[in-house]
C-alpha cells in the first residue's frame, strides 16, 4: 500500500473519532422529570419561578445559592448552585441549567441565563456562571 493511502486512512479514522466523540460527549436537553431518571448530567431549560424566594445569604454561606425553576413542562424544582448568586439573576427571562438531580434537588454545575438586554431592545444577552467542578 502506498504511504499516502495509509496516511489518508489514519486521517479519516481520527476525523471520524472526533465526530463520534462530539456526539458521545454531547448532552441532552431534558426536563426535571428526565433528570430524576438519569444519573448523568443534562441540560434543563426553564424559567425562574418568581413566586418563590431566592436564597442567597452570603453572611451565612457565600457559596450557597438556591432558587426554584419551572421547566418547560411547568414542573417546579429546587435548584442548588454552589457559588454566588449570578449578577442580575432576578431579571432572567430564560435559564439553561447544566447538572443533575441529587436527593430531589437539582444540583447545577452551570447556569446560563438570558436577560432582556438593557442595551439593545432587540438584542438578548446571555450570561454564564459555573460552580467549582
Amino acid at each position: 500500500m502506498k504511504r499516502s493511502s495509509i496516511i489518508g486512512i489514519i486521517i479519516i479514522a481520527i476525523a471520524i473519532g472526533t465526530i463520534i466523540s462530539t456526539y458521545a460527549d454531547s448532552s441532552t436537553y431534558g426536563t426535571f422529570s428526565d433528570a430524576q431518571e438519569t444519573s448523568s448530567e443534562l441540560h434543563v431549560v426553564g424559567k425562574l419561578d418568581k413566586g418563590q424566594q431566592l436564597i442567597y445569604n452570603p453572611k451565612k454561606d457565600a457559596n450557597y445559592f438556591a432558587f426554584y425553576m419551572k421547566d418547560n413542562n411547568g414542573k417546579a424544582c429546587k435548584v442548588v448552585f454552589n457559588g454566588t448568586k449570578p449578577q442580575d439573576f432576578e431579571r432572567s427571562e430564560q435559564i439553561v441549567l447544566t447538572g443533575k438531580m441529587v436527593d430531589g434537588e437539582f444540583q447545577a454545575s452551570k447556569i446560563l441565563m438570558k436577560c432582556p438586554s438593557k442595551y439593545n431592545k432587540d438584542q438578548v444577552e446571555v450570561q454564564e456562571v459555573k460552580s467549582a467542578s
Partner: protein
Amino acid sequence: MDIQFAGEHLLPGQLGQFFIVLSFGTALLATISYYFATVKDTLDGSWKRIARIASGLNTVSVAGIGSCLFYIIYNHYFEYNYAYAHSSKALPVYYIISSFWEGQEGSFWLWMFWQAVLSNILIWKAKSWENSVMTTVMLSQTFLASMLLGVEILGARIGSSPFILLREASEGPIFSRADYLTLITDGNGLNPLLQNYWMVIHPPTLFLGFASMIVPFAYAIAGLWEKRYKEWPLSALPWALFAVMILGTGIIMGSFWAYEALNFGGFWAWDPVENASIIPWLTLIAAVHVILAYKSSGHSYFTATFLTIISFILVLYASFLTRSGILGETSVHSFTDLGMFGHLLLYIGVFLILSIVLMVIRWKEMPITEKDEETYSREFWLFIGALVLGLSCMQVLATTSIPVFNAAFGTKIAPPPNEIQHYNKWQVPFAVVVSIISGFTQFLKYKNTDTKKFWKKIRISVLVAILATAAFVYIAKVYTNLMYIVLTFAGIFSIISNLDILFDALKGKWKLAGSSVAHIGFAFLLIGALVSAATNEVVSVNTSGLIAVAGFDKVEKPRENLMLYQGEPMAMDKYTITYVGDSIDGVNVYYKVNYKDIDKKTGKIKEEFNLYPNAQQNPKMGLVASPDTRHYLTYDIYTHATAAPQIKEDKHEAHEGHSEDEEYDTPLTKEVSPGDTIKYTSGVIVIKAVNRNATIEKIPISPNDIAVGMDLEIITGGKTYTAQPLYLIKNGNKFDFAKTIDEAGLKLRFSNIYPDRNKLELMVYQKPAAPKKWIVLKAIKFPYINLFWGGTIIMVIGLLLSIFRRQKELRPAR
C-alpha cells in the same frame, strides 16, 4: 399626517445613508469592471480605469459612513437608534470609539473599512494581480456594504443601517409627539464590560485580521481563474503571514481583555465565539506551511489551495455563527438575529460555490504531483503538520457547530456539559503532535536529508529537552497528569530545536530566524496556556463550610468564595487579607483589599500590597464586577468581588417630627464621680474633672445660678476625644447641654447632680453601629501565565520577520 418632529438632526443620517448606498454601488461597479478588466484584454485599460475610480470612491464612501456615524455619536444625537442604543453622554471620547463597534452595524463597517484599506494597498502593490485579485475583494466589499443597506426590497429588509432613527427602530407612544426628543435626554450607554481600554484596540485588530484573510483567498481564486497556478502561492504568502500575525494578535488581545476585565476567571473558555475565530487562524497557519512545502518541493499543491480557500470561508462561517443568533443558548457572547440569517448564509454560499466550481473546473490542470514525498524531507512533515492542524480545527468545528446541526436537522443535541474537558481531551494531543513536528522538521531539508546528521541533532535535542522538562515539571508542579508532562516535553523540545536553528541564523543565515522565533513563541504560548490552565488554583478556599465527621470520608467540597467583613483580616493562602473599604469613582466602586504576607516566625511583613477589584453598580445591569490582578514574573494573583451589598443612595435625612434622640440607641445612664472610668460598647470614657466655673455662650450666668461642666476623655477605636457636657441650674430650673462627637457616634449628657450622694449623672447615647460592610471575594492564582502572553509577543515578532523575508523573495532579483 406627517408630524414635524422638533430638534432632529437629519442631515448626518441622510448623508451617511447616501454613503452606504454609494459604497454598495461603487463596490459592485468595481467588481464588475475588475471582472471585465481580467477577462477582456483591452489595450487601453478602460475597464481597469473605471474599476480604480470605483474603488477609490468606495474608500471615500466608507470613510464617509464612519465620519457620519462618529459625528452622530460624538454629538449625542439620540434621535438615531445607534447612538441611543450604544452610547450615553457620560461616555468619555475614547469609549465612544468602542461604542462605535458594539453593535453589529459598526463592526461590519470596521470590516469594510479594513477591506477598503487593503484594497488600496493591493491597487498600489499587486501589479499584474490587481484585476483578478481585486474582483474577489470587491465582491466581498459589495456583500459587506449590502449588510448595512437597511432598505426594503420586495418587502424584505436587506441589511441593517446604523443610521436608522430611534422612532423608526422602536415603537412607543412618545414618538407621536412632535417634541419627543425633549423626553430622551440620554442614551442607553455602553455595556460596562466593554468600557475597557482593550476594547478600544481589540476589535480593530481582530477585524483587520479577518479582513486580511480575504487577500490570500483572492490570490488563490485569481491563480485558478487566470491559470497562474504556480505563481499565486508565492504572492499570497506574505499576505497569509500578515493575516496570521494580525488575527493571532487580535485573538490573544481578546483573551487578555477577558482575563483583565471579565470575571469568568481565565483567558480561554472554548466559548463558541472564541472557537469561531481561532479555527480560520489555525487553518491559515496550516495553509502557510503547505504553501512553503509547495514552493520548495512542488508537493502539496492541492492542500495549499484548499486550506487557503477554506480559511476565508471559515471566516465567513465565524461571522455567521456570531451574528445570526444561532448560538443562542450556547454562548455567552451573542448577537441576536438582525434579520441577517439568510443574508449571511448567502454571503458564505456565494464564496463557497465560487471556490468549489473553480476548483472542479481547474482540477485537471492543477500541478498536483503523483509521487509521494520522501519520509526524511521537510515537505512531507510540513504536510503532516498541516493535516494535524486541520484535524484539530475539525474537532473544534464539529462541537462548535452543534447548534447549526440542530437548526439544520431539527435535532435537540446539547453541547457537552463539561466543554473545557471535552476540548482539552482532543486538543492537548493535537498540540503535542504539532509541537513535536514543529521541532524536528526544522532539522529536515527539502527533498531529502542526511539521516545521520538528522538523528544526531534529534538525539541532542531530545536529551536536552528531557532534562529541561524534568526541571520545569518539578518547578511548575505539572506532574499530576501524564498528558501535561508530555505536552510540556513537546513544547520544550520545540523550543530547543528551534533555538538550535536560531543560533545558526545568528551566525549569518539571519533570514531564517523568522520561523524559528515564531515557533519558539508558539511553544511558549502552549506551555504557558497549559501550566496556567492546569495548575491555576482558587486560593480563596472557604474552609468554614468544611465538615469533617469522624469515621466518614465525606468532607464537603471546599467552596471557592470567601466572605470578608470590613476590617476583619482573614488568612488566605500565604496572605492575610483585609477588606479595608471602598471608594467610588464615577460608576465604579473600588473595593480595597489589603494583602499582607507575614512571616509566621518573626511576624514581620514580607510583602504588602492592595488590590482594587471593582464593580459597577449599574442601574441597568446590577452589579458588574471586574477583577484586579497582582502580576508577578512567575504567577498572578487574580481577585474579584463576586458579591457585594448594593449601595443605597437614600440617606436618612433629619426632618421634622423626629426627635434627635431617635437616631441613638437607648442611652446608658451612669452615676459617676471624677476619676471614674466607665465602659460603653465601643470604648471607655474617663471622667477627668468637674469644672465649676463653666460658661455658656449667650447665657449670662448670675451668681445664683450654677453652671457645671464635666471634663470627659473618650477613648474609642484607638483615638481620644475630649468633651465637656454642661449642667445648668438657672432661676431654679434645670437645664443640660449635651455634647456630640459625630466621629465616634456619641452624644453625652450631664443630666443631673446628686449632691446627697456626691454623684454626677452621665448619659451616654450611642448611634447604632452601621451594618458592617462586606464583600464576597474569589481569588485565583495563575502560575506562569506570563509565558502565555510572552509567547504571543515572541510569535508575533517571528511572524513579522517572516513577512519581511517572504516579501523580499518576491522582488525580482537585480
